């Protein structure tokens, strides 16, 4: 995983709440067996509308998605995170994220930041007034800054450390091999096994 320290980029304001993962990447895209090539599927249905924010030239090249509450609800598809990253987003800002989506994003190095709704609205207004406005998301100092905005955010220390270092979870877990083996040896024999009976 790529490490995340700090990122500065333009805002893409997505004035919608409850953006579910079916909207982020529709199911028919889930037939692919790779982690890349999902950028054209991102918000596919909404992109057919010329007025949709991703279709406005002024917002092209934006890398920080600022969305309404309950972003990433619904299906657990990690493809939603890959689609956002394939398209070029580095961070998503919202007042509330669905749990599985948040977990998936942090595992892939897409920084998801929880901010109070008034700050989200302020960022929407800033970028709608001047689409060139840049925002900085700094994981080292845990702040989001933009003209007139300087907001601290919290992130679980462990998740932050993994992101900052770009660490791979599996290698970290495998350092606990002896603990896992010990746990396995003590499991009761009545527990189910999938071996054919």
């Amino acid at each position, binding site marked *: 995983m790529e490490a995340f320290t700090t990122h500065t980029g333009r805002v893409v304001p997505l004035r919608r*709440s409850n953006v579910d993962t079916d909207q982020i990447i529709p*199911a028919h895209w889930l037939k692919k067996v790779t982690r890349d090539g999902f950028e054209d599927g991102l918000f596919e249905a909404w992109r057919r509308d010329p007025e949709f924010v991703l279709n406005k030239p002024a917002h092209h090249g934006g890398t920080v998605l600022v969305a309404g509450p309950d972003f990433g609800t619904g299906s657990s598809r990690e493809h939603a995170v890959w689609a956002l990253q394939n398209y070029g987003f580095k961070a998503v800002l919202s007042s509330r994220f*669905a749990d*599985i989506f948040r977990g998936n994003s942090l595992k892939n190095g897409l920084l998801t930041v929880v901010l109070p709704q008034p700050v989200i609205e302020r960022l929407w207004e800033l970028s709608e007034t001047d689409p060139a406005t840049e925002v900085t998301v700094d994981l080292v100092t845990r702040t989001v800054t933009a003209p007139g905005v300087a907001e601290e955010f919290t992130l679980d220390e462990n998740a932050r450390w993994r992101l900052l270092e770009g660490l791979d979870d599996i290698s970290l877990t*495998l350092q*606990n091999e002896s603990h896992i083996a010990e746990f396995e040896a003590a499991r009761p024999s009545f527990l189910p*096994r999938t071996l054919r009976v």
Partner: protein
Amino acid sequence: MGRTLAEKVWDDHVVRRVEGEPDLLFIDLHLLHEVTSPQAFDGLRKAGRAVRRTDLTIATEDHNTPTLAIDKPIADPVSRTQLETLRKNCADFGVRLHPLGDVEQGVVHVVGPQLGLTQPGTTVVCGDSHTSTHGAFGALAFGIGTSQVEHVLATQTLPMAPFRTMAVTVNGELPADVTAKDLILAVIARIGTGGGQGYVIEYRGEAIEKLSMEARMTVCNMSIEAGARAGMIAPDDTTFAYLAGRPHAPRDAEWDEAVAYWRTLRTDADARFDHEVVIDAAGLAPFVTWGTNPGQGAPLSQSVPAPGSFSDPSAQLAAEQALEYMGLSAGQPLREVAVDTVFVGSCTNGRIEDLRSAAEVLRGRSLASGVRMLVVPGSVRVALQAVEEGLDKVFTEAGAEWRHAGCSMCLGMNPDQLAPGERSASTSNRNFEGRQGKGGRTHLVSPQVAAATAVLGHLASPADLSDVPEPAGV
């Protein structure tokens, strides 16, 4: 202080606990399907890793599989590649697979319980958010992303940050015409699609204890639609009776040992939940959704709400956008909403009891003209049982299509889809924009409401069928 059910199961699975780090949890059962696993197996291959516990892992094909002509090669080459990839991965890594055509094939969340693999007090994961279904057995079961699928394949563990706990207590008795589906839709409308965020919900109370195992699965299945990571119900005699004799249930002395342990899996009297919601079962009624998220629902007897009736501005905006997408107007009675498609199936309502209750309503009746109805059993076993009971005949005689098992129109990854502007009454779990096909409009309903709707051509409950016979003592 006492512990909740969820906390007990959690504690029994901690492999390693270190201050300031997430707990490392052991996973008892890992379910796989074709959509969320290919990139995980790919990761294993790249890192030269094996599947640590093939004996705790099982795969089935469900999302992409066709429900017609299953003996012919799959027409869509991309779907075919995904299924072939799963078959190759399972063969290469030694994972048990139930492919299309196998008697144990079906929707992953129907297959696990019916094999007796889902057991009380276990941890169950799958790269699928509706893994919450398995919580009906008192298992701690949750959906994970593909990176986590790879993590579990490689280590049989997951680092997990602790959950908060919520009790949803349903007191009293459900009225005769109210099902588990109506109950959970009402719960979601009450707490909202984000209300369960960060929580494991335990459903309890008299009305829950009286539910069958299949109805409990319907309730736990939709926990994710309230944003919760998992839903659970304490195991009891109903649970044990369901499990006894299933292929993977313990036997003889091990059965007794298991039941003795399972009986300890109850929330202690002095345990505290972080949040509690109390619902009066007697006040519930058949419930349907009118919007584009599962929290946008109302009793069938009501009308489409006016966006202005919501106090929260983002809920107002969401309602406006939903009504526009759904082609509905505020004040329209829900009973007058006409549908052209009815779907009975999915991991929410594709089990044998669901098919029985839909068939009961349809018996001797026929579909309204212009309505097509798809009945898709949740698994091949469910289909075989239904055929044995003659339910397939009831459906086909009424004019419905009897299909092969799979996810089907729940998410429209196979050819079973709504056309733009088509409207369905669906027993599935998600009414998101385009979920059942581009531009398709979905109303979530119970199997009974689905069947009555198919007969009348508009949203309806069995009570609306004037010639309705008295239900025969159910």
